[in-house]
Each structure stands twice: as C-alpha cells, then as structure tokens.
C-alpha cells in the first residue's frame, strides 16, 4: 500500500499541499490523521459532519480507511487540519485535563440498536462505570445485554464515546476494542484525575 519512490521529500510536501488545497475546495469527504497516545497510536477521522472514527492500531489502519472508503466515500485523504480540535481534546483528556469531549460526532458507521446504545454511552460520567445490564435497561431493552456488549465492541468512536466505562456485572473488565490493557489504562487515568 505504501509505494513512495525516490523524490520522497518532494512527494511528502506535495501531498501536504494537496491536502490543504483539497480542503479549501471542499473535496475531502473523510479527513484523517494519526496521533500518539498512552494507549498507542490512534487514527482519528472526520467526515463533513463531525468525528466519525477513532481507531486503535490493533484494528488495522489500512482496513479502517478502506471501510470508510466503502461506507462513507472513497474521497479519503490524510488531512490533519480538520482533526486539530479532536487532537487537542484527546491530548487534554490523556493528560487528565478534560473529562468530557465537546466535538461534533458523526455516527455514520453504525446503525440501529447499536447506535442507540453508543449514543447513551456519554451519559456514563467520567470516572464512573456501568454494567452491560444497566446499559441495556437504560436503552429500554433490559434483556438485550448481549446486544449491548456488541454495541460496545463495535463502537466506531472509542475513547471519545466511552465504551471503556462499561464493565461486567461482577465488576471484571470484560472485553474492549483496543484490548483489555488499554481499557485498564483509561479507567486508571479517569480514577486518578
């Protein structure tokens, strides 16, 4: 997938200029960049409507980009400027200076009951946790805790939409899209801030 030939510097500079000009001419449907974080590199992507994807490296960035090309638009470009706000808020979050995100969100990559559950997740306060069963009750389908589990597992906006705050009823961590280690890191961060 990476086929950069010799005039590397020239091409990098041209690619950057292309991102800028394409944004100015409103030609980018999905802009993305990567950021470093205590839970590893994260890919963040924004559609014209808002933040549409946060992805862990373990999810495979190439596959994540391809899915957005298929389901939103193939006009996907590395264009960091559109993600400046998201990058700043994530940075503040990871340094313990931010407890909630104030970003326009686009749930284009999810639908149905999963989307309903994901929209409820931000109601679990920073530093707090809920069980899959509690969330199922809050969603009005108390017996659908398995569906709640898959809603968390397919959350297109982890970290920002806090599926990491959902635990098993017995208090054990349960699974996480970014791996259990990342889930523990986020919960520890929120507990100590």
């Amino acid at each position: 997938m990476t086929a950069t030939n010799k005039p590397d510097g020239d091409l990098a500079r041209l690619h950057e200029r292309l991102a800028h000009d394409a944004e100015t001419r409103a030609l980018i449907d999905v802009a993305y960049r990567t950021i470093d974080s205590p839970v590893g590199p994260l890919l963040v992507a924004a559609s014209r409507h808002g933040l549409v994807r946060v992805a862990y490296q373990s999810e495979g960035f190439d596959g994540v980009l391809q899915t957005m090309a298929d389901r939103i638009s193939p006009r996907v470009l590395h264009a960091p400027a559109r993600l400046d706000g998201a990058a700043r808020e994530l940075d503040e979050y990871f340094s313990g200076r931010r407890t909630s995100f104030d970003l326009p969100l686009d749930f284009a990559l999810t639908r149905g009951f999963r989307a309903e559950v994901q929209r409820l997740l931000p109601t679990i306060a920073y530093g707090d946790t809920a069980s899959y069963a509690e969330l199922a009750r809050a969603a009005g389908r108390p017996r659908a805790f398995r569906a709640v589990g898959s809603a968390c597992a397919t959350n297109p906006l982890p970290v920002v939409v806090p599926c990491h705050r959902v635990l098993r009823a017995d208090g054990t961590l349960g699974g996480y899209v970014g791996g259990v280690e990342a889930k523990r890191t986020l919960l520890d961060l929120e507990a100590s801030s």
Partner: protein
Amino acid sequence: MVLLPFDAVVREHGAVVLRVCRSMLAVHDADDAWSETFLSALDAYPSLPHDANVEAWLVTIARRKCIDLIRASGRRAVTVERMPETASVLGLPEESAERSASADRVARAVSALPPRQRQAVTYHHLGGLKYQEVADLVGGSADAVRRAAADGIRALRKTMEAER
C-alpha cells in the same frame, strides 16, 4: 474490486505522475500540474469505474493539466481535440527499480533542455503528437519543431552518455 481510499492512490501513483509532469514542464510548474492533477482526480474519483486502470487515468489527466499550464503561460491557445493514445513509457509500476531510476534521469535531462527543445521532445516523443500538432500547440512551423526535437534528442543522448 473496490475503490481504495484516495490517499492510497496518491501514495501509489504520486511518483509516476510527478515524473510525467517533470518531463513536460519546469520543476515549479510541474508541482502545480501535479496538484491540479490530483485535485481533479479526487473530485471525479467516486465515479471512476471500479475496474479502471487508475495509473493510465491519472497520466491522462496529468498530460492535460500540463498542456493547460503551457497554454496559460502565454502560448497561443490552440484546441487539442483529444489526448494522444500512446501509453506513457515512464515509471510503469512493474518496472525494476533500475529502470525507474533511469526514467528519472531521462525526465531530469528532458526538463533541463531549452524550452523549445523540451516541448518538441515531450510532445512528439513522449506525448505522441505529430510535428504539425506540436507546432499548432507551441507555435512555429512543423519543420522548426522537427529540428528542435532532433536537437533535443541529440542533447539528451549526450547528457545520458556523459552520466554513464
């Protein structure tokens, strides 16, 4: 087949498009042509047939953008009805690294030619236009273009031999 994210298209074909632009234009203008090529391509990309040859499509756009820039830079405006069909011999992806390096050297040598010779060589030998068509595009007579192309090729041969 699905369309790749456009970003992957830029990374895969950016170098080839740059070589085409540099063979037709001076470096600064080549950058502009490269940008315009990918901006046009980005705009049209979602409607590109999924089985299209993306590189051939991009090279066609690049040649058109180069000719647009040459026209805009004050030459006589002449309508070219269609782009030459000749496939680019520059930077095909399956080339070995060595051939690709030599294509780069040729592109650099071409861009170092005096403007008349560079245009004649590029449009006639690389672009596949007839001498009369080149003359219509850049001005002057077909004979003058033929002489400029011959001088250009001689100069190129000298440069390439000197580099060996």
